[in-house]
Protein backbone atom coordinates (compact mmCIF):
# COMPACT_ATOMS: atom_id res chain seq x y z
CA UNK A 1 0.00 0.00 0.00
CA UNK A 2 2.69 2.42 1.09
CA UNK A 3 4.76 1.46 -1.94
CA UNK A 4 1.80 2.17 -4.24
CA UNK A 5 1.25 5.48 -2.40
CA UNK A 6 4.91 6.42 -2.86
CA UNK A 7 4.69 5.55 -6.50
CA UNK A 8 1.58 7.67 -6.95
CA UNK A 9 3.27 10.59 -5.22
CA UNK A 10 6.32 10.19 -7.41
CA UNK A 11 4.27 10.02 -10.63
CA UNK A 12 2.19 13.02 -9.57
CA UNK A 13 5.34 14.91 -8.69
CA UNK A 14 6.88 14.10 -12.05
CA UNK A 15 3.70 15.16 -13.81
CA UNK A 16 3.62 18.41 -11.86
CA UNK A 17 7.27 19.10 -12.59
CA UNK A 18 6.68 18.39 -16.27
CA UNK A 19 3.62 20.62 -16.31
CA UNK A 20 5.48 23.49 -14.60
CA UNK A 21 8.42 23.17 -16.98
CA UNK A 22 6.11 23.00 -19.98
CA UNK A 23 4.01 25.95 -18.84
CA UNK A 24 6.99 28.11 -18.00
CA UNK A 25 8.68 27.39 -21.31
CA UNK A 26 5.38 28.15 -23.04
CA UNK A 27 5.16 31.41 -21.14
CA UNK A 28 8.74 32.22 -22.06
CA UNK A 29 8.05 31.43 -25.68
CA UNK A 30 4.98 33.66 -25.60
CA UNK A 31 6.98 36.38 -23.97
CA UNK A 32 9.64 36.11 -26.66
CA UNK A 33 6.98 36.13 -29.32
CA UNK A 34 5.39 39.19 -27.73
CA UNK A 35 8.73 40.99 -27.65
CA UNK A 36 9.34 39.98 -31.25
CA UNK A 37 5.88 41.15 -32.23
CA UNK A 38 6.36 44.43 -30.42
CA UNK A 39 9.73 45.00 -32.02
CA UNK A 40 8.35 44.28 -35.46
CA UNK A 41 4.98 45.90 -34.99
CA UNK A 42 5.90 48.76 -37.27
CA UNK A 43 9.01 47.27 -38.76
CA UNK A 44 8.07 45.98 -42.18
CA UNK A 45 11.53 44.62 -42.91
CA UNK A 46 11.16 41.18 -41.29
CA UNK A 47 12.53 39.72 -44.53
CA UNK A 48 15.61 41.44 -46.04
CA UNK A 49 14.60 43.44 -49.08
CA UNK A 50 15.24 41.75 -52.42
CA UNK A 51 17.72 43.96 -54.33
CA UNK A 52 15.69 43.40 -57.52
CA UNK A 53 12.57 44.66 -55.71
CA UNK A 54 14.41 47.75 -54.47
CA UNK A 55 15.79 48.38 -57.96
CA UNK A 56 12.59 47.82 -59.94
CA UNK A 57 9.91 48.94 -57.49
CA UNK A 58 11.86 51.62 -55.66
CA UNK A 59 12.84 53.75 -58.68
CA UNK A 60 9.69 55.88 -59.01
CA UNK A 61 8.29 55.53 -55.50
CA UNK A 62 9.36 54.02 -52.20
CA UNK A 63 9.64 50.22 -52.33
CA UNK A 64 6.36 49.57 -50.50
CA UNK A 65 6.48 46.69 -48.00
CA UNK A 66 4.67 43.64 -49.44
CA UNK A 67 2.70 43.21 -46.17
CA UNK A 68 0.71 46.33 -47.00
CA UNK A 69 -1.47 44.60 -49.61
CA UNK A 70 -3.13 41.18 -49.90
CA UNK A 71 -1.87 38.56 -52.38
CA UNK A 72 -4.71 39.15 -54.85
CA UNK A 73 -3.85 42.83 -55.18
CA UNK A 74 -0.14 42.12 -55.62
CA UNK A 75 -0.86 39.51 -58.26
CA UNK A 76 -2.84 42.02 -60.32
CA UNK A 77 -0.24 44.77 -59.84
CA UNK A 78 2.88 42.83 -60.83
CA UNK A 79 1.14 41.22 -63.80
CA UNK A 80 -0.09 44.51 -65.20
CA UNK A 81 2.98 46.73 -64.96
CA UNK A 82 2.35 48.18 -68.40
CA UNK A 83 -0.62 50.06 -66.94
CA UNK A 84 0.71 50.91 -63.52
CA UNK A 85 -1.39 53.67 -61.95
CA UNK A 86 -1.22 55.81 -65.07
CA UNK A 87 2.33 55.01 -66.16
CA UNK A 88 4.09 52.33 -68.15
CA UNK A 89 6.30 50.46 -65.69
CA UNK A 90 6.50 47.31 -67.83
CA UNK A 91 8.93 44.56 -66.83
CA UNK A 92 10.06 41.36 -68.53
CA UNK A 93 8.37 38.09 -67.51
CA UNK A 94 11.42 36.69 -65.68
CA UNK A 95 11.63 39.79 -63.47
CA UNK A 96 7.91 39.68 -62.71
CA UNK A 97 8.21 36.03 -61.67
CA UNK A 98 11.17 36.69 -59.38
CA UNK A 99 9.44 39.67 -57.77
CA UNK A 100 6.25 37.71 -57.22
CA UNK A 101 8.16 34.85 -55.59
CA UNK A 102 9.60 37.28 -53.06
CA UNK A 103 6.43 39.30 -52.49
CA UNK A 104 3.80 36.60 -52.06
CA UNK A 105 5.04 34.74 -48.95
CA UNK A 106 5.02 38.07 -47.09
CA UNK A 107 1.33 38.63 -47.71
CA UNK A 108 0.25 35.72 -45.49
CA UNK A 109 -1.40 37.52 -42.60
CA UNK A 110 -3.14 35.67 -39.78
CA UNK A 111 -6.23 37.64 -40.74
CA UNK A 112 -6.09 38.21 -44.51
CA UNK A 113 -6.35 41.84 -45.57
CA UNK A 114 -9.36 42.79 -47.67
CA UNK A 115 -8.48 43.85 -51.23
CA UNK A 116 -8.64 47.68 -51.32
CA UNK A 117 -10.28 49.62 -54.17
CA UNK A 118 -7.98 49.86 -57.22
CA UNK A 119 -5.47 47.77 -55.24
CA UNK A 120 -4.22 50.98 -53.68
CA UNK A 121 -2.40 50.84 -50.33
CA UNK A 122 -3.71 54.33 -49.56
CA UNK A 123 -7.32 53.15 -49.90
CA UNK A 124 -6.89 50.19 -47.57
CA UNK A 125 -9.01 50.09 -44.43
CA UNK A 126 -5.91 49.72 -42.25
CA UNK A 127 -4.33 52.77 -43.91
CA UNK A 128 -7.37 54.94 -43.24
CA UNK A 129 -7.52 53.73 -39.63
CA UNK A 130 -3.80 54.33 -39.05
CA UNK A 131 -4.01 57.88 -40.44
CA UNK A 132 -7.34 58.98 -38.97
CA UNK A 133 -5.60 61.64 -36.84
CA UNK A 134 -4.04 63.31 -39.87
CA UNK A 135 -6.03 66.40 -40.82
CA UNK A 136 -7.22 66.76 -44.41
CA UNK A 137 -5.22 70.01 -44.76
CA UNK A 138 -1.98 68.13 -44.04
CA UNK A 139 -2.48 65.80 -47.00
CA UNK A 140 -2.82 68.73 -49.37
CA UNK A 141 0.44 70.42 -48.31
CA UNK A 142 2.83 70.68 -51.25
CA UNK A 143 5.60 68.87 -49.33
CA UNK A 144 3.30 65.91 -48.73
CA UNK A 145 2.15 65.92 -52.34
CA UNK A 146 0.55 62.48 -52.22
CA UNK A 147 -0.52 59.96 -49.59
CA UNK A 148 1.69 57.51 -51.50
CA UNK A 149 4.72 59.59 -50.55
CA UNK A 150 5.39 57.81 -47.22
CA UNK A 151 8.90 59.16 -46.64
CA UNK A 152 7.76 62.78 -46.36
CA UNK A 153 6.40 62.09 -42.87
CA UNK A 154 7.68 58.58 -42.06
CA UNK A 155 11.35 59.52 -42.00
CA UNK A 156 12.50 55.92 -41.53
CA UNK A 157 10.16 54.39 -44.14
CA UNK A 158 13.02 53.65 -46.53
CA UNK A 159 14.41 51.35 -43.82
CA UNK A 160 11.00 49.68 -43.46
CA UNK A 161 10.15 51.38 -40.16
CA UNK A 162 6.74 53.07 -40.10
CA UNK A 163 6.56 53.53 -36.32
CA UNK A 164 4.76 56.67 -35.20
CA UNK A 165 7.87 57.48 -33.13
CA UNK A 166 9.52 58.41 -36.40
CA UNK A 167 6.83 60.62 -37.88
CA UNK A 168 7.83 64.21 -38.69
CA UNK A 169 5.09 66.10 -40.49
CA UNK A 170 6.43 68.97 -42.61
CA UNK A 171 4.87 72.18 -41.37
CA UNK A 172 4.04 70.48 -38.07
CA UNK A 173 0.77 69.31 -36.55
CA UNK A 174 -1.06 66.07 -37.09
Amino acid sequence: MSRRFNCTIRVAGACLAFAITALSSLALAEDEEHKHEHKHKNDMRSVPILPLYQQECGACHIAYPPQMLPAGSWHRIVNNMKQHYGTDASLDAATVKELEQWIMPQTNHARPLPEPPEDRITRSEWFTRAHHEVAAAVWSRPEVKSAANCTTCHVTAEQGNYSEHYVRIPGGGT
Partner: protein
Amino acid sequence: MSIFPSPSVTRLLQVLALALVAAAPCVHAETSEQILDQYRTQAGTAPDPSRGQQFFTSKHDHEWSCSSCHGDKPVQTGKHVVTGKSIGPLAPAFNQERFTNTAKVEKWFRRNCNDVVGRECTPAEKADVISWLLTLK
Protein backbone atom coordinates in the same frame (compact mmCIF):
# COMPACT_ATOMS: atom_id res chain seq x y z
CA MET B 1 49.37 35.89 -32.48
CA SER B 2 49.60 34.48 -35.99
CA ILE B 3 50.29 36.84 -38.86
CA PHE B 4 48.07 34.68 -41.06
CA PRO B 5 44.36 35.33 -41.15
CA SER B 6 42.20 32.85 -39.23
CA PRO B 7 40.81 29.90 -41.25
CA SER B 8 37.35 31.50 -41.37
CA VAL B 9 38.77 34.78 -42.70
CA THR B 10 40.83 32.88 -45.28
CA ARG B 11 37.72 31.00 -46.35
CA LEU B 12 35.78 34.25 -46.62
CA LEU B 13 38.52 35.77 -48.77
CA GLN B 14 38.49 32.69 -51.01
CA VAL B 15 34.71 32.98 -51.44
CA LEU B 16 34.96 36.71 -52.17
CA ALA B 17 37.71 36.13 -54.76
CA LEU B 18 35.61 33.43 -56.46
CA ALA B 19 32.54 35.67 -56.41
CA LEU B 20 34.51 38.48 -58.04
CA VAL B 21 35.78 36.17 -60.79
CA ALA B 22 32.27 34.77 -61.33
CA ALA B 23 30.67 38.22 -61.41
CA ALA B 24 33.20 39.77 -63.81
CA PRO B 25 31.53 38.66 -67.07
CA CYS B 26 28.15 40.00 -65.82
CA VAL B 27 29.32 43.59 -65.39
CA HIS B 28 28.08 45.82 -68.19
CA ALA B 29 31.00 48.07 -68.87
CA GLU B 30 29.38 50.08 -71.63
CA THR B 31 29.91 53.80 -71.97
CA SER B 32 27.32 56.41 -72.92
CA GLU B 33 29.25 57.03 -76.16
CA GLN B 34 29.01 53.33 -77.05
CA ILE B 35 25.27 53.34 -76.38
CA LEU B 36 24.87 56.49 -78.48
CA ASP B 37 26.82 54.74 -81.27
CA GLN B 38 24.42 51.78 -81.20
CA TYR B 39 21.43 54.09 -81.73
CA ARG B 40 23.27 56.15 -84.34
CA THR B 41 23.95 52.93 -86.31
CA GLN B 42 20.32 51.80 -85.99
CA ALA B 43 19.06 55.22 -87.05
CA GLY B 44 21.43 55.54 -89.99
CA THR B 45 21.59 59.32 -89.48
CA ALA B 46 23.72 61.66 -87.42
CA PRO B 47 22.24 62.63 -84.04
CA ASP B 48 21.32 66.26 -83.46
CA PRO B 49 21.71 67.57 -79.87
CA SER B 50 19.41 70.58 -80.36
CA ARG B 51 16.66 68.32 -81.73
CA GLY B 52 17.24 66.09 -78.69
CA GLN B 53 16.77 69.02 -76.32
CA GLN B 54 13.54 70.01 -78.02
CA PHE B 55 12.28 66.42 -77.89
CA PHE B 56 13.18 66.20 -74.19
CA THR B 57 11.36 69.37 -73.15
CA SER B 58 8.24 68.95 -75.36
CA LYS B 59 4.97 67.44 -74.22
CA HIS B 60 4.16 65.76 -77.56
CA ASP B 61 0.42 66.46 -77.16
CA HIS B 62 0.37 64.46 -73.93
CA GLU B 63 0.42 65.25 -70.24
CA TRP B 64 4.14 65.10 -69.47
CA SER B 65 7.50 65.85 -71.03
CA CYS B 66 10.76 64.11 -70.11
CA SER B 67 11.62 67.24 -68.17
CA SER B 68 8.46 66.96 -66.04
CA CYS B 69 10.42 64.48 -63.88
CA HIS B 70 14.04 64.99 -64.96
CA GLY B 71 14.04 68.81 -65.08
CA ASP B 72 14.58 71.07 -68.12
CA LYS B 73 18.33 70.63 -67.81
CA PRO B 74 18.88 67.25 -66.14
CA VAL B 75 22.19 68.00 -64.46
CA GLN B 76 20.58 68.00 -61.02
CA THR B 77 18.36 65.69 -59.03
CA GLY B 78 14.86 65.56 -60.53
CA LYS B 79 11.56 64.78 -58.87
CA HIS B 80 8.90 62.32 -60.03
CA VAL B 81 5.94 64.47 -61.03
CA VAL B 82 3.39 62.11 -59.43
CA THR B 83 5.10 60.47 -56.46
CA GLY B 84 7.64 63.16 -55.55
CA LYS B 85 10.45 60.58 -55.37
CA SER B 86 13.85 62.08 -56.19
CA ILE B 87 15.50 61.00 -59.45
CA GLY B 88 19.29 61.20 -59.87
CA PRO B 89 20.74 63.47 -62.60
CA LEU B 90 20.37 62.06 -66.11
CA ALA B 91 23.32 63.77 -67.81
CA PRO B 92 26.25 61.29 -67.73
CA ALA B 93 28.73 64.02 -66.71
CA PHE B 94 26.76 64.44 -63.48
CA ASN B 95 25.89 60.80 -62.85
CA GLN B 96 28.37 58.20 -64.03
CA GLU B 97 25.86 55.34 -63.73
CA ARG B 98 23.70 56.77 -66.53
CA PHE B 99 23.71 55.14 -69.96
CA THR B 100 26.10 52.33 -69.01
CA ASN B 101 23.77 49.36 -69.57
CA THR B 102 21.87 48.91 -72.84
CA ALA B 103 19.12 46.76 -71.31
CA LYS B 104 18.43 49.37 -68.63
CA VAL B 105 18.48 52.21 -71.15
CA GLU B 106 16.06 50.31 -73.42
CA LYS B 107 13.74 49.54 -70.49
CA TRP B 108 13.45 53.18 -69.46
CA PHE B 109 13.13 54.52 -73.01
CA ARG B 110 10.33 51.97 -73.65
CA ARG B 111 8.39 52.94 -70.52
CA ASN B 112 8.97 56.67 -70.54
CA CYS B 113 8.40 57.16 -74.28
CA ASN B 114 5.05 55.40 -73.88
CA ASP B 115 4.17 57.78 -71.05
CA VAL B 116 5.45 60.96 -72.70
CA VAL B 117 4.99 60.41 -76.43
CA GLY B 118 2.35 57.66 -76.38
CA ARG B 119 4.56 55.28 -78.38
CA GLU B 120 8.07 53.86 -78.36
CA CYS B 121 10.82 56.26 -79.45
CA THR B 122 12.75 55.70 -82.67
CA PRO B 123 16.51 55.01 -82.59
CA ALA B 124 17.02 58.49 -84.11
CA GLU B 125 15.05 60.15 -81.28
CA LYS B 126 17.00 58.20 -78.65
CA ALA B 127 20.30 59.16 -80.31
CA ASP B 128 19.24 62.84 -80.43
CA VAL B 129 18.39 62.87 -76.71
CA ILE B 130 21.60 61.10 -75.62
CA SER B 131 23.72 63.35 -77.85
CA TRP B 132 22.17 66.40 -76.16
CA LEU B 133 22.67 64.93 -72.66
CA LEU B 134 26.34 64.38 -73.52
CA THR B 135 26.76 68.09 -74.27
CA LEU B 136 25.75 68.97 -70.67
CA LYS B 137 28.96 69.37 -68.70
